[in-house]
């Protein structure tokens, strides 16, 4: 007997009740999780702006130098100190024109080309450092959360690194180790490797902590027990079952990491310990322009705005992602 027999004389109220329980409209097609995330993300205007600006600036610095193909390092001393094109609006005699839309600097280098090239460096440092920090942080977090034996020591290690003074140490490392790496990999390559590794080695700790916490909670769930009971190896459990479930905190800390990496790189360039002096980055352009900002305020403003807008966009993106990926907020 699989079905309960229907009562011979159902009460009126019961019928009403059963009717109310039935679906009136047609059933909605099932929705995937990522579709929900996207719908929630779209509601956050700032995040949408941030995401599109980040894509725009990344594409601009990747392809921009091919379209605006003036060499950023080429000196043209006869055409030095051009003003940006918009100065023509209020000053018809200003030295400005469409050949150099953002003007030229005191050595006649085109500022637009410098901005594009410098942005390429800053964004490359940011993305690389962020990716490296994520890999280190996730690895340590997963190992620490999943394997009980390593947990204590790995977390003590993370705490120790967290109590290191980051900015002084980064300054120290970049100043002291710049020379040998330069001779090994060339002035730009060496500095790039050094800055990326220093930034990523000092910014993985938050990711590790968050990932560890999530793994600890997930490890006790039934689906992990089920996976274990059919003989899945720990490596496979981590790759198949745990990593996909911690992807959202990792994405959120990725945006934070990108923002701090861009700011740290610019701060290093600003303090004059970063890339070599003829190699334009946003921070270095800003630092070089500070001495003559009375006459040429735009040279401070343009790279400064570029850094700030990029970081703002990344932060908004992170905000939106956090809301969109949090199932408690989603759908409200």
């Amino acid at each position, binding site marked *: 007997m699989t079905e309960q027999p229907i009562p011979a004389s159902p009460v009126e109220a019961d019928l009403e009740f059963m009717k109310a329980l039935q679906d009136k409209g047609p059933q909605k097609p099932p929705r995937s999780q990522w579709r929900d995330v996207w719908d929630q993300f779209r509601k956050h205007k*700032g995040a949408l702006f941030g995401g599109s600006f980040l894509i725009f600036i990344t594409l601009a610095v990747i392809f921009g130098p091919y379209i605006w193909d003036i060499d950023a390092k080429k000196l043209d001393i006869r055409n030095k100190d051009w003003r940006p094109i918009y100065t023509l609006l209020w000053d018809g005699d200003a030295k400005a024109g469409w050949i150099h839309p953002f003007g030229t600097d005191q050595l006649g280098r085109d500022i637009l080309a410098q901005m594009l090239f410098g942005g390429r460096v800053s964004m490359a440092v940011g993305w690389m450092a962020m990716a490296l920090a994520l890999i280190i942080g996730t690895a340590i977090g997963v190992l620490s959360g999943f394997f009980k034996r390593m947990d204590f020591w790995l977390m003590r290690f993370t705490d120790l690194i967290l109590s290191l003074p980051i900015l002084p140490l980064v300054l120290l490392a970049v100043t002291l180790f710049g020379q040998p790496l330069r001779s090994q990999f060339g002035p730009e390559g060496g500095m790039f490797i050094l800055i990326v590794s220093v930034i990523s080695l000092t910014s993985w700790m938050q990711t590790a902590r968050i990932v560890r916490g999530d793994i600890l909670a997930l490890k006790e769930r039934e689906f992990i027990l089920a996976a274990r009971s059919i003989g899945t190896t720990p490596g496979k459990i981590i790759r198949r079952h745990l990593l996909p479930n911690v992807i959202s905190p990792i994405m959120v800390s990725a945006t934070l990491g990108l923002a701090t990496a861009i700011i740290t790189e610019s*701060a290093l360039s600003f303090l004059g310990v970063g890339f070599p002096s003829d190699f334009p980055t946003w921070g270095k352009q800003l630092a070089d322009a500070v001495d003559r900002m*009375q006459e040429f305020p735009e040279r401070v403003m343009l790279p400064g705005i570029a850094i700030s807008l990029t970081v703002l966009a990344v932060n908004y993106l992170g905000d939106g992602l956090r809301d969109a990926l949090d199932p408690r907020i989603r759908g409200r």
Partner: protein
Amino acid sequence: MLTFTIRRLLLSIPTLLFISLVIFLLLQLAPGDPMAQVPLTVPPEVKEKMREALGLGQPIHIQYWKWLVQVFWIEPQVFIDYLTNRSTLFGWLPDTALSEGKLRVISWQTRSPVMDIVIQRMPQTLWVVGLAYIVGIVIAIPIGIYSAYRHYSVFDQAGTFITMVGFSIPPFFTGPLLIVIFSVTLGWLPSIYDTTHVVNDWASFKVQFMQMIMPVMVLALQTTAQISRYMRGAMLDNLNQDYVRTARAKGLKESVVVMVHVLRNSMIPVVTIIALGMPAIFGGAIITENVFKVNGIGQLLLTALRANDLPMVMTLTFIFAVLIVLFNLIADILYGLLDPRIRYD
């Protein structure tokens, strides 16, 4: 609570030792040569003697041990000597002269004790950084409270946007930006912080006040952005709790409900964030000091790095580390004291 504090204090000793070892090894591995500034005409055997005079001839572990002894044993003795000898508070005690003839950590740049220079530079940094932090907190907390109370209002939206912007603009951009606006264009404020300025009357106080505005505001912007976000989040978490409804149902005034019941509970995480953020703002001061030419400890670190002055760099970085460990400890203890739900024992 007391046992927890003692345990944490004891635990911070190996932490600090480890950090000092990391910094020391980093400096040892670095290829910079302190003799690089010495003229080439100096013969190599003389250079070797100079190197030994700086203590560089010794093996690494002995150098490290000597640094430890100098910082943890001799410097406190110097401090006690100072207390019993010159300070007004303990000057009546007999002069101890503990550190007589003992070698302190000597800077390679100036050949004078590192600690003396640090103590000379400290007040400038503390004034600018400390005041900036206080100003930042004083601005941030009301903003956070009001934006949470009027959630999704125009004020909240504008406040969230402004804090996000303040969060994103780095201090090395806000600094020059403020200089362009207020020093160059308007000519209201001086662009350089004059540390030799002495305050002795109203007019000189006014000058001091004017020159502090910009560095303090630049640093305070970062603090404000961060803390008001936390404050808003904490208030939002608490405003929907049951005890708030109970308080309102009892007929308490709205101001009492928000400013006493909700605020006190929301301050718990914010206070720890304030304590934890303190070392970071010292780090941020490195950049701000550079922009406004304040000769504080951040600027000292930069010049020492450029001059390859290893004892100075070592000691300064270690001071930053001590600050971080100290404020982490303070944050943990405060959290335990303020929140009765947290039990460490």
